[in-house]
């Protein structure tokens, strides 16, 4: 898909990969709606994009709260028009330090699923119908290797991402014939606040920079070669195209 002129919505855009994806999309000419729970952190990023000549708007929303989904979808479309590119990047890790499943509160699992799975489902439901009628649109689900590997203590996050991967496949199965692409990306280990919270002892110098990963993901979005419903490990996606 062409990025220039595209209307994009990026959740979890106030830091890490979401911020980097927003900057990269705006740099390539997309009109970007940045979404996060706190507007305060979004405003400087929006300013930065605008100062560089791009178009960006900040919307505050908690994707774990179902009453905020339609207001978000409506406000986003009011600002940039029908959404062509939807990136589900917002994630909730659950309480840290991470806990064994037997020590995980059911309410913590519910909250993780609300943000990482139900939120993306609800937001896609509010936006993908228009894509299916317009016969164009791309939905990207930001996943994790925890969705395929069962790491101890990553339980809540891990099941939410496994389900998110499958949600991506199901959207592709149902909407692929109607012009809508859906896939998930595993960004690999990055130097982000979330990574530091989950693995405080990791050496940041061994981790990928979000900006580099974002560039690769945007390359995947532009490419027509990504199979609908695919789960792509970004570190292995290489520098083709």
């Amino acid at each position: 898909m062409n990025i220039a002129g595209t209307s994009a919505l990026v959740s979890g855009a106030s830091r890490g990969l979401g911020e980097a994806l927003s900057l990269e999309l705006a740099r390539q000419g997309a009109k970007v709606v940045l979404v996060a729970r706190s507007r305060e952190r979004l405003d400087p990023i929006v300013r930065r994009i605008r100062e560089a000549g791009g178009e960006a708007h900040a919307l505050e929303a908690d994707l774990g709260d179902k009453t905020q989904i339609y207001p978000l979808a409506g406000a986003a479309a009011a600002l940039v028009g029908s959404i062509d590119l939807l990136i589900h990047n917002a994630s909730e890790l659950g309480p840290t330090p991470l806990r064994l499943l037997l020590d995980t509160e059911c309410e913590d699992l519910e909250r993780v699923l609300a943000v990482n799975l139900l939120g993306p489902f609800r937001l896609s439901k509010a936006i993908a119908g228009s894509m299916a009628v317009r016969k164009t649109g791309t939905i990207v689900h930001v996943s994790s290797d925890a969705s395929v590997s069962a790491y101890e203590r990553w339980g809540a996050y891990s099941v939410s991402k496994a389900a998110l991967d499958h949600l991506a496949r199901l959207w592709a199965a149902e909407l692929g014939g109607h012009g809508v692409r859906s896939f998930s990306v595993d960004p690999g280990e990055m130097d982000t606040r979330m990574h530091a919270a989950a693995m405080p002892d990791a050496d940041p110098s061994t981790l990928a920079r979000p900006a580099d990963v974002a560039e690769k993901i945007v390359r995947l979005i532009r490419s027509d070669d990504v199979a609908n419903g695919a789960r792509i490990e970004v570190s292995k996606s290489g520098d083709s195209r």
Partner: protein
Amino acid sequence: MKAATLPRSEPNRERLLVVDPERDTFADFSIADLPQFLGPGDAVVLNDAATLPASLRADEELELRLMSELEDGTWLALTLGRGDSRVPTEARGSPRPLSRGEQLDFGSGLRACVISVEPESSSRFVRIVFEQTGSALWQALYRAARPIQYSYLARPLALWDVQNAFASRPWAFEPPSAAKPLTFETLFGLEARGAILAHLTHAAGISSTGDSALDRRLPLGERYEISVATATLVNETLARGASVLAVGTSVTRALEAAARGGRVQPGSERTSLLLGPSSKLQICSGLLTGLHEPGTSHYSLLEAFASRGLLDRSFAHAEAQGYLQHEFGDSCLILAGALRDQLRAKQAA
């Protein structure tokens, strides 16, 4: 006819009254049967406007209903007085007159200033400008406002109750409700039959002010946008002699307002076009719509598609059969030749 008092949880079961002006007859179906009435190459045109929360409360004595967003970023609004959503609009108290320069606070950080008041509307039509712009405005509007409510409903409407499954930009002030019963099962079913889905955006305006003199001035100029792709698709459909089915009166009014010499002109315009028995339709061959009472402007628009006699007979039948009317009620398809095959099958039997 009784009103539907709740949004349906299983829209595929909604009833569909099929009216065939060519055969001068009607028959009962369910909305899930819709695809069988369209064929390869027919166009089904949808209004993809999302419904914005258009009802704003300044205080207990004053509600503003947004009616139109103007090109200069100001908004036209209607004032309503004391009474909540359970009180029919016509029974609401007289709103206090607003004056130019007055500041209004709707809560959640949404504030506006009155720019002008129209005396001819008993001062009920006002033009306002919001303090915020851009994302701050939309964020505050969605927090402070609610969708317009209907007194005959069993419970207040949430924002998701008033959206169609394919809605996008929030241009509509009241729901373009004809498409409410359309699930993607049905929409994809139409495509599987070879019909083509097309879309336009029409800012469906408010249907009633509670004052019959003001109602006669509706609709105010409502903006619509028809893309080049949609205009081309509709024009090619007409050139092939296939049907153009308008889903809802807002689509009908946009397509007919944009008609020039039997072809649709793409573009972004405003229309206050009203259609009735003497209208000659240039574009639309058929209409999918909700059911509303005779005597309304909606019913009058139906007369552009079918004779009064056929409509009266069909609707009397629908009422006797317990069809439900209004925003969340049953549906009616008016399409010439729709029942051709059914009648043939019946005769053969």
